[in-house]
């Protein structure tokens, strides 16, 4: 296997990619670490933007403090994952930052770089939130042409769920 694309973000669910990668995947020749910046934060507006509007948004954001903050954050995220992977004995790691719609960008990079496998973290949205905001792994899995590994981490399961809280009360 040559190239593996690992899509990461700052959620806990994303950390599952590390253990999954370490334990289950044959060591590849190259690892691509990709972080997609959400220009709109948690707003769902971005799903409605077309290419033209997205590029306008990008232009108007470039150079602003907000964008710098985003860049700094993505550097941090990528550095964290890079370090973790390097500790595992990997040498050739390439990091990448994109902005825009997450699933679209992941698939675009996968196509451009001709990767053999995409690894994403688990989705944390449940119930109503999932219906509204959707599920990134599912979307990538549906539209991808290459195998998709969805990382899950049992340890990352909720420590205090709604039920736990209710019991305590």
């Amino acid at each position, binding site marked *: 296997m040559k190239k*593996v694309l690992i899509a990461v973000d700052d959620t806990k669910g994303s950390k599952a990619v590390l253990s999954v990668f370490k*334990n*289950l995947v*044959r060591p590849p020749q190259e690892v691509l670490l990709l972080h997609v910046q959400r220009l709109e934060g948690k707003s769902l507006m971005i799903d409605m933007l077309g290419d033209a509007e997205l590029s306008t948004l990008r232009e108007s954001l470039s150079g602003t403090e907000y964008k710098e903050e985003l860049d700094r954050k993505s550097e941090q995220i990528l550095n964290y994952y890079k370090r973790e992977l390097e500790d595992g004995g990997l040498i050739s790691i390439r990091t990448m930052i994109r902005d825009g719609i997450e699933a679209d960008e992941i698939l675009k990079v996968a196509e451009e770089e001709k990767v053999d*496998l995409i690894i994403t973290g688990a989705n944390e949205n449940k119930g109503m939130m999932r219906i509204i905001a959707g599920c990134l792994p599912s979307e990538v*899995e549906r539209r991808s*042409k290459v*195998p998709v*590994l*969805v990382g899950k981490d049992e340890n990352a399961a909720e420590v205090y769920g709604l039920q736990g809280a209710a019991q305590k009360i």
Partner: protein
Amino acid sequence: MSKVLIAVDGTKASTAVTSTFYNSVSRPERLILLHVEKLEGRSLMVDMLGDAEMTTLKESMAGTEHKVALDEKADKILSYYKHEFENSGAGEIVTMVRAGHPCEEILKVAAEENVDLILIGNSERKGLSRVISGSVAREVQKHTKIPVLVAKRPPSCEEPYSWRDAIAAVSVTSAIVFALFLFGTFVHR
């Protein structure tokens, strides 16, 4: 790395698990090949049955010709995949046949055997049929706490002639014929 569960069925999409396993997965100590028989064939009724009805159905099916045929088919599928994986370097290959709801059975076996990875092929359903019957891969991925690797069939060769090409060919040909016709009348005069 110890246990991998591979869910297979008789579809073409399912054959993608072989190449994906060889390419991407590190060799496990134990490989479980699971085939889930759909007792109702392609009917979607199975999604609506509760546990009680399911057991009744299983009981009433036991020993019938249909069930025997299903078992034969399951054996065939599993022996095919077992053969495929024999030289993979995996420690021990176990085959399993279950009956019932595919997603539930896969999750049950995964929990019982305490597997580390579920590998599953992707049904390439599109549009309405996907909305109606859903995707087993998606459902498994949604309900489990175990990593899921969804295998994809390499994009089959693109259709050599699509309808666009056909229209283009027809229009170019008719344009040429028309031009020749005009040229002919022009020269004739």
